[in-house]
C-alpha cells in the first residue's frame, strides 16, 4: 500500500479510542469513560480494526533492509522484513524490530531545543531555522559532521554544505574504510565486494562477523544458513572461522582456527601461496606470495602449518569457496593489508565473479576516521564557527583520547539533528530533532541497480514536534538565499529520481509507484556508483606491509573491541528491547561484561562475576568478568554500546564505554579507526556482582535437548533408532485411553484423526487443523531476531536489570546456547548448539492438569493456550513445565515500565497482561484467529498453507522456523517434519508429545559430546 498523499495522513491519529480496546490491562480494565474519536475525513484505505501494511526501508543501520510496517488506525505497531526486497529478502534483525521503540521513545525531544546558558529551552521551528540561518551567515567556517544517509540525502547535504561554503566530514562509528581502500587499491573499484555466501561450499571468515553487523547482516545471515544447512543430497557447506574470538557468526562455524589477532594477512597469503602453485596468478602480488608461505603464517598465527596448508587445499578442492576479510572487530594497523590479502586469496582461488562481486553499495560512511581526527584538531584550534552533527554521536563513539568533547566545546555554534538526547546533542547550542525514518522520506541504494524508497508510514508521533533534517536544510538554504530548488525534501528526493530516470525504464510514475508498493525496484541505473572492472588485480599505490601489525605493549592481554550485536556502536542502546535482549553470545542483558577464557581466569584466580579493572595506556574501566571458552587465552573482549552518560533513561549508566580504553588512532593506509591495537592489564577490584544473564547452564548434561547428527550418519538411521533419538511416532489423543500412535511415514500423518476420537467439545476435532512448528537447528544461527519480534508482536514487557538478576525475564522464546566442543588453543572442529526454546504446546502438557481453574488447556487445534483473564497465579503450571517456558508477571510491568508514548507500540490484537498473570508463547494465536476470520469472510474458504506466519517465523533471516497444519501431509511443516533429523525435546523421557518439532543440527565430525 502506498502513501503518496500527505494531507490524508493528518487524520490518522484521531481514531485512537477505537483501537484502545486491545491495550488496556487484562482482568482489570479502566473505569474511566472511554471516548470514541471518529475520523474527521475518513481515509478510504483505512478500516478501523484492520491492519494496514506499508513498505519502507529500515533506517536503523547502514544495511537498510527492506521493511514492512503494520499500522492500526494510523499507528505503527509492528515491523517485519520485506520478502520482496532484493537484498534483505525478508527477515529482520532484532535491531530492526527495536526501531519501533526509537519511534515511540519517550526520550525524544518534544521540539527544537535552543540553549540558554546551561539549559535548553524548547522553541519553535521558525525560530530555530532563523537562528541557524543567522549563525550560518555569520559563521566563518561551517563543518557538517554526519554519518552515511541515503543517496538523495547525501547529495542534498553536499549541495547544502557547498552552498554555505563549509566542509563536510563523514563519520560512522563502525566504518568499512579499510575495506573500501582495499577494494580501491586491489581492483580500483569504488564499489564494495558483495559476497554470495549461499553458493559457496566452503566459507572462510577471517574474523568477519557478517551476520551481526556490516553491509547486510540479514542477507548474510540468510546466505549462511542456506549455505550451511544440509540439503536433500545430504551435503552441506562448511564454514571455517579464523579469529581470536567467536562472535555469534563464529559460533556457527564448523571449524575454529583461533589465530593470533592481526595475522589474518599472513594466513590468507599463506593459503594463497599454496593455492597459487604458479604465483604469477596473483599478478602484481606474486612476490608477496613467494615470501608468505604456510610456514611463515604458522609461525606468527599460532596455529599449525598443516592446519593452514590443509585448509588451503580444501579451499580449492571444495569450490566454489569464499573468503571474507576481517570485520569491524579486527581493525588493526594492518587492516587494509589484511583485506587485500583476503582479496588475493579469493582471486587466486578464482572466486571473483563467482562468489565475490564488486557491486555492493557503500553503506557505511565513505570517508575515514582520519578526516575526523583533522576535524577535531580544526575545532580545537577554534577554526570552526558552526558545527552541524547529523546521524552521528562522536562525543560517545570516539575514544575519549581523541579529545572530541573538548574540541567540540571550542566550536562557536553547535547544532545537532539528534531526535533524542545523546552525548553530542547534550553539548549542542541548537537541537533540531530529526524525524524517525518511519515518519520521513528517504531512499537507499543497497546494491548497484537497486532503488529502495523509504516512505513515511504514519503521521509524526504527536508528542514530538520533529522535522526531517532534509526539510530543515532545504528551508535554511532557502532562507540563506541560495535555494536548492525544492520546497521540501520530498520534492527534492522525487525530482532527483526523476532526473536520473530515463525512458528505457518505462514510465516513471509506474516505476515510482512500484518502488513504493514493493519497497524496491531493480534497474540498471548506476546512480553514480562506478563499478570497477574487478577482474584483475592492480599493484598497490601505497607501500603495504602484510606482516602482523605492531600492537601496543603495556598490558598482558590483547583487548578485542567489537560492535555489540544489540547496540551496534551504541546508537541502539536506549531501547529496553535491546537492553533486555540476551546477547546472542553471552546471554547477558543490560550491563557490560569482559569476556575472558576460563583457563586465563583460573591462572589469575578470577571467578565469573568478579569485577575487574581493565586498564590500558588510555584509561581504565571496571567491569564484571564473564568466562567464555570461545576466546583465545591471550585476549579479552569488550563490546561497544555500553556506558552512555547522556542518552535517555534506558541507556544512561548501563555498563562501560570501551572507547575509554582505545587510543585515538587511524590506520596509515586507509585512515580507518584502529580498534584492535590495545593490550590491557586486568586486575580484580575485589568486588563481585551477579551477572544479569538468562543462562542457567551451558552444558546439556547429556540430556536430549539439542542433539546433533553427524553428516556421515544421515540416511543410515534405521527405523529402530527413532525411538531413542526422540523421533517417536506421532500420537493422537483419544477420548479414552490417552494417546495412541498414528500411522505416519516419518512423522507425516497418513490417517488423521483416528477412529473413535471423541472428546465432547472436541468431537469435530478431525475437521480442525493441528497447528505445529518445525525448527531446523541446522539453520538457526542464534541471532535472536525472533526474540525481539516476539516481544513486539505479543506485547511482552521488559522487566529491567534487577528483575533479570532475580531470574524474572519475560522472554516467550529464548535462544539456548550449549557448548559441545569449543577449543581456543588449536585449530579444530567447533560444536555449539543453538536452540530456540518456546512453549512446546505439548499434546500431553504437564502444565494443563495442574491448573485449578482451567486457565491453561488444550484447544481442538492442538494449541496449548493460556487464558490470561482466568489465571489466578498459582504458578503451579510454571513449576510443572519441563521446558520452563512460562513467565509470570511479578509486577505491573506493562504499566510501570512503559511510559507514554511507548505504549503506542502495543499490538491491539493481543491482551496486555498485568500483575499476577502467567503467560507464554501462544503460537501467535491472534494471527491464527485473524486469518480464520478472513477466511470465514471469504465464504468460509479453507486456510492455505503458509497463510499464517508466526512472528518468530517471519523475522527469522535463516528461515529456520516453519509453522503450519501438521495434519495436512502436503503442508510445508509436514514436509519438513518428515525428515529423519526430526526430534522433540525431552519427549522420549517424559512423553510430553510436543507440537514443536526440532530438526537436529548436522555436524561434519562424529557427534561425541552431548546427546546423540
Amino acid at each position: 500500500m502506498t502513501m503518496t498523499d500527505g494531507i490524508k495522513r493528518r487524520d490518522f491519529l484521531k481514531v485512537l479510542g477505537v483501537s484502545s480496546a486491545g491495550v488496556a490491562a487484562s482482568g482489570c480494565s479502566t473505569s474511566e469513560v472511554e471516548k470514541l474519536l471518529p475520523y474527521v475525513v475518513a481515509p478510504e484505505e483505512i478500516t478501523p480494526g484492520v491492519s494496514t501494511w506499508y513498505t519502507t526501508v529500515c533506517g536503523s543501520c547502514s544495511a537498510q533492509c527492506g521493511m514492512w510496517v503494520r499500522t492500526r488506525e494510523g499507528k505503527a505497531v509492528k515491523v517485519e522484513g520485506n520478502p520482496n526486497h532484493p537484498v534483505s529478502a525478508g527477515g529482520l534483525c532484532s535491531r530492526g524490530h527495536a526501531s519501533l521503540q526509537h519511534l515511540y521513545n519517550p526520550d525524544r525531544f518534544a521540539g527544537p531545543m535552543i540553549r540558554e546558558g546551561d539549559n535548553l529551552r524548547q522553541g519553535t521551528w521558525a525560530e530555530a531555522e532563523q537562528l541557524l540561518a543567522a549563525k550560518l551567515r555569520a559563521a566563518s567556517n561551517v563543518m557538517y559532521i554526519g554519518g552515511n544517509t541515503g543517496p538523495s540525502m547525501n547529495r542534498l547535504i553536499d549541495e547544502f554544505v557547498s552552498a554555505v561554503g563549509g566542509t563536510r566530514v563523514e563519520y560512522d562509528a563502525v566504518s568499512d574504510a579499510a575495506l573500501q581502500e582495499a577494494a580501491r587499491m586491489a581492483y580500483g573499484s569504488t564499489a564494495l565486494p558483495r559476497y554470495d555466501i549461499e553458493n559457496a561450499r566452503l566459507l572462510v571468515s577471517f574474523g568477519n562477523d557478517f551476520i551481526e553487523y556490516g553491509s547486510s547482516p540479514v542477507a548474510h545471515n540468510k546466505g549462511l544458513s542456506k549455505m550451511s544447512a544440509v540439503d536433500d543430497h545430504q551435503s552441506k557447506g562448511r564454514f571455517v572461522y579464523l579469529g581470536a574470538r567467536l562472535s555469534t557468526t563464529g559460533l556457527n562455524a564448523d571449524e575454529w582456527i583461533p589465530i593470533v589477532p592481526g595475522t589474518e594477512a599472513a594466513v590468507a597469503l599463506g593459503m594463497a601461496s599454496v593455492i597459487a602453485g604458479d604465483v604469477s596468478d596473483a599478478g602484481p602480488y606474486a612476490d608477496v606470495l613467494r615470501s608468505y608461505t604456510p610456514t611463515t603464517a604458522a609461525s606468527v598465527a599460532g596455529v599449525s602449518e598443516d592446519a593452514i596448508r590443509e585448509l588451503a587445499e580444501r579451499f580449492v578442492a571444495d569450490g566454489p569457496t569464499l573468503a571474507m576479510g576481517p570485520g569491524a572487530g579486527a581493525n588493526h594497523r594492518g587492516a587494509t593489508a589484511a583485506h587485500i590479502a583476503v582479496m588475493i586469496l579469493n582471486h587466486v582461488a578464482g572466486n571473483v565473479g563467482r562468489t565475490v562481486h564488486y557491486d555492493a553499495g557503500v553503506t557505511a560512511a565513505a570517508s575515514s576516521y582520519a578526516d575526523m581526527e583533522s576535524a577535531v584538531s580544526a575545532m580545537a584550534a577554534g577554526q570552526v564557527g558552526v558545527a552541524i552533527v547529523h546521524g552521528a554521536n562522536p562525543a560517545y563513539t570516539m575514544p575519549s583520547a581523541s579529545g572530541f568533547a573538548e574540541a567540540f566545546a571550542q566550536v562557536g555554534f553547535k547544532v545537532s539533528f539528534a531526535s533524542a538526547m545523546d552525548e553530542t546533542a547534550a553539548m549542542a547550542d541548537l537541537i533540531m530533532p530529526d524525524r524517525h525514518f518511519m515518519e520521513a522520506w528517504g531512499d537507499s541504494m543497497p546494491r548497484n541497480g537497486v532503488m529502495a524508497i523509504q516512505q513515511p508510514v504514519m503521521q509524526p508521533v504527536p508528542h514530538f514536534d520533529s522535522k526531517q533534517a532534509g526539510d530543515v536544510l532545504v528551508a535554511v538554504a532557502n532562507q540563506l538565499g541560495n535555494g536548492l530548488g525544492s520546497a521540501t525534501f520530498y520534492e527534492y528526493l522525487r525530482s532527483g529520481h526523476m532526473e536520473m530516470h530515463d525512458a528505457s525504464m518505462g514510465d516513471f510514475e509506474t516505476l515510482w509507484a512500484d518502488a513504493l508498493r514493493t519497497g524496491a525496484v531493480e534497474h540498471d541505473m548506476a546512480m553514480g556508483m562506478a563499478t570497477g572492472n574487478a577482474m584483475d588485480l592492480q599493484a598497490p599505490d601505497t607501500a603495504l606491509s602484510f606482516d602482523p601489525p605492531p600492537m601496543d605493549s603495556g598490558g598482558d592481554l590483547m583487548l578485542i573491541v567489537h560492535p555489540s550485536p544489540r547496540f551496534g556502536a551504541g546508537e541502539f542502546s536506549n531501547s529496553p528491547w535491546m537492553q533486555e535482549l540476551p546477547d546472542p553470545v553471552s546471554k547477558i542483558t543490560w550491563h557490560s561484561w569482559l569476556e575472558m577464557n576460563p583457563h586465563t581466569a583460573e591462572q589469575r584466580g578470577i571467578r565469573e562475576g568478579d569485577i575487574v579493572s581493565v586498564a590500558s595506556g588510555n584509561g581504565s574501566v571496571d567491569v564484571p568478568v564473564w568466562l567464555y571458552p570461545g576466546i583465545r587465552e591471550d585476549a579479552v573482549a569488550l563490546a561497544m554500546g555500553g556506558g552512555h552518560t547522556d542518552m535517555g533513561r534506558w541507556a544512561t549508566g548501563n555498563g562501560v564505554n570501551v572507547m575509554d580504553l582505545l587510543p585515538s588512532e587511524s590506520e596509515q593506509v586507509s585512515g580507518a579507526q584502529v580498534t584492535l591495537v590495545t593490550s590491557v592489564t586486568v586486575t580484580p577490584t575485589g568486588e563481585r556482582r551477579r551477572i544479569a544473564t538468562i543462562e542457567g547452564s551451558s552444558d546439556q548434561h547429556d540430556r536430549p535437548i539439542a542433539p546433533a547428527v553427524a553428516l556421515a550418519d544421515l540416511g543410515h538411521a534405521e527405523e529402530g533408532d527413532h525411538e531413542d533419538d526422540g523421533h517417536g511416532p506421532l500420537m493422537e489423543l483419544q477420548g479414552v485411553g490417552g494417546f495412541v500412535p498414528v500411522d505416519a511415514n516419518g512423522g507425516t500423518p497418513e490417517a488423521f484423526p483416528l477412529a473413535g476420537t471423541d472428546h465432547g467439545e472436541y468431537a469435530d476435532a478431525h475437521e480442525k487443523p493441528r497447528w505445529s512448528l518445525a525448527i531446523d537447528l541446522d539453520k538457526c544461527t542464534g541471532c535472536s531476531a525472533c526474540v525481539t519480534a516476539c516481544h513486539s508482536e505479543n506485547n511482552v514487557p521488559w522487566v529491567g536489570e534487577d528483575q533479570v538478576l532475580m531470574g524474572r525475564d519475560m522472554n516467550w522464546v529464548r535462544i539456548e546456547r550449549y557448548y559441545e566442543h569449543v577449543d581456543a588453543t588449536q585449530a579444530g572442529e567447533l560444536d555449539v548448539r543453538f536452540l530456540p526454546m518456546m512453549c512446546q504446546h505439548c499434546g500431553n502438557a504437564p502444565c494443563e492438569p495442574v491448573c485449578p481453574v482451567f486457565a491453561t488447556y488444550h484447544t481442538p487445534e492442538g494449541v496449548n493456550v493460556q487464558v490470561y483473564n482466568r489465571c489466578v497465579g498459582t504458578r503451579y503450571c510454571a513449576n510443572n513445565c519441563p521446558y520452563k517456558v512460562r513467565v509470570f508477571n511479578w509486577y505491573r510491568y506493562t504499566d510501570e515500565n512503559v511510559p507514554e508514548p511507548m505504549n503506542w507500540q502495543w499490538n491491539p490484537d493481543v491482551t496486555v497482561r498485568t500483575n499476577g498473570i502467567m503467560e507464554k508463547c501462544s503460537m501467535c494465536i491472534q494471527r491464527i484467529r485473524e486469518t480464520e476470520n478472513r477466511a470465514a469472510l471469504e465464504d468460509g474458504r479453507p486456510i492455505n498453507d503458509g497463510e499464517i506466519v508466526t512472528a518468530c517465523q517471519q523475522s527469522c533471516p535463516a528461515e529456520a522456523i516453519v509453522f503450519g497444519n501438521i495434519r495436512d501431509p502436503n503442508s510445508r511443516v509436514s514436509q519438513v517434519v518428515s525428515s529423519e533429523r526430526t526430534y522433540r525435546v525431552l519427549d522420549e523421557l517424559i512423553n510430553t508429545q510436543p507440537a514443536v518439532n526440532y530438526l537436529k543440527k548436522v555436524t561434519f565430525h562424529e557427534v561425541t559430546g552431548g546427546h546423540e
Partner: protein
Amino acid sequence: MSTGLLASYEYLDSTVDAIEGLKKAGFKVKAYAPYPEHHIEDALGYGQSPVRVWTLVGGLTGAATGLAFTTWTSVDWPLIVGGKPIVSIPAFVPIIFEMTVLFGALSTVIGLFILSRLPDVKPAVVYDPEFTAGRYGVYVEAGSDRVDEARKIMNAQEPIELREGEGEDDA
C-alpha cells in the same frame, strides 16, 4: 401434677443401685454424671445409639454428591487438560473422599444435637452444678401416690442431699 425428686450421690455404686431400684419399681429415671459412665447407661438399659445411622447416611450422600458433581462439571464444559479423558474418575477420588468425610461428620453432629436435645436453652430447674464436678444425680418424677416409695428407694443409698419440687414432666 407430679413431684420431682432429685438425689445427688457421692458414690458411683450407690447411684447405680438407686437407679436399678427405681427402675425395678417402674419409675422413669433420669441420671446425671460428670463423665460418660457406662455403668449408669447399663443400669438404665440403653441400646445402640441411632447416631450411627446419621453418620452412614451423611457419608453416603457425600460420596454420591462428590461423584456426581465432579463428573457433571467436567462434562458441562469439556476441556482437555494434559491429554486426560474429560471424565477421569481417579482424579476425582480425592474430592469424593473428602466430601464423604465432610458430609458424614456434619450429619453426625446434627444427629447428636437432635437426639440429645441440644442446644438445651431452658433454664435448668432440676440441676446441681456439682454434677459437672464430682457428684452423680438421680431424678424421678412421681405422682403424689408414689412419691414416698421413690423417696424411700433413693434414701436407701444415702444421697448427699435429696431435693423435691414441682415436676416438669420432662421426657
